């Protein structure tokens, strides 16, 4: 299922709605790389609250998205990783080093606004 990407102010919000296939993840990666370069975009939030598994492939794509978005001049934050999902990820050795995370969408957006920003 294609992940909808919405724009809110200077942020893009990719809100995962359902389980994702590998091709859905690759599609999201390409679209976010594209849109992160649009004028005025300074941040990207990927909301993975509904994902009940993040395996090595998904984790690699998420890291790639975060790095790509940064190279395109914006910041990326992953929000909503569930406790069981986090536990399984750590056991798999998938710690998303260097990727910013926040508990939920509100905190993710706050993180992107940063202190002193509007």
């Amino acid at each position, binding site marked *: 299922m294609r992940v909808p990407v919405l724009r809110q102010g200077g942020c893009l919000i990719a809100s995962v709605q359902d389980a994702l296939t590998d091709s859905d993840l690759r599609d999201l990666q390409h679209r976010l790389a594209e849109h992160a370069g649009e004028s005025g975009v300074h941040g990207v939030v990927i909301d993975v609250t509904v994902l*009940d598994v993040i395996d*090595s492939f998904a984790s690699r794509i998420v890291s790639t998205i975060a790095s790509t978005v940064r190279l395109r001049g914006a910041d990326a934050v992953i929000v909503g990783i569930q*406790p069981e999902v986090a536990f399984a990820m750590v056991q798999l050795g998938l710690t998303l080093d260097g990727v910013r995370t926040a508990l939920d969408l509100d905190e993710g957006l706050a993180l992107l606004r940063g202190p002193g920003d509007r």
Partner: protein
Amino acid sequence: MENHIAITGDVDIVTARSRAKDMAAELGFSRTDQTVIAAAVSEVARNILVYAGSGEICLQPRRGNGRWGLVAVASDQGPGIPDIDQALTEGYSTAGSLGVGLSGARRLMDSLEIDSEVGRGTTVTMCKWSHQRA
């Protein structure tokens, strides 16, 4: 309750892990263990697709010592694994991936065995036991 899932495309990986999770829930596994099992199944299902192109995941409940266990068997007729120890090494991959698939699945499950013959195929059998008494 036995459940066979043919793996021929990436949609089947999603099906396999969701069936694994459902079966784990039915057997009374904790939410954490349901996720852990689904993640392990996802890794071995992807290995089938990446290395063999197609294969099958079979999920079956098992009872032992008054507990329920879930057995997942991933089988394919792919090229086989020449060096199983190496394939189980963290970070080793011949497919340009992270190389956490088999070693990660082994950490997530209580047991993981590999039976492989070069040119004939690979069977990975893994099991996780519920902490609750059946």
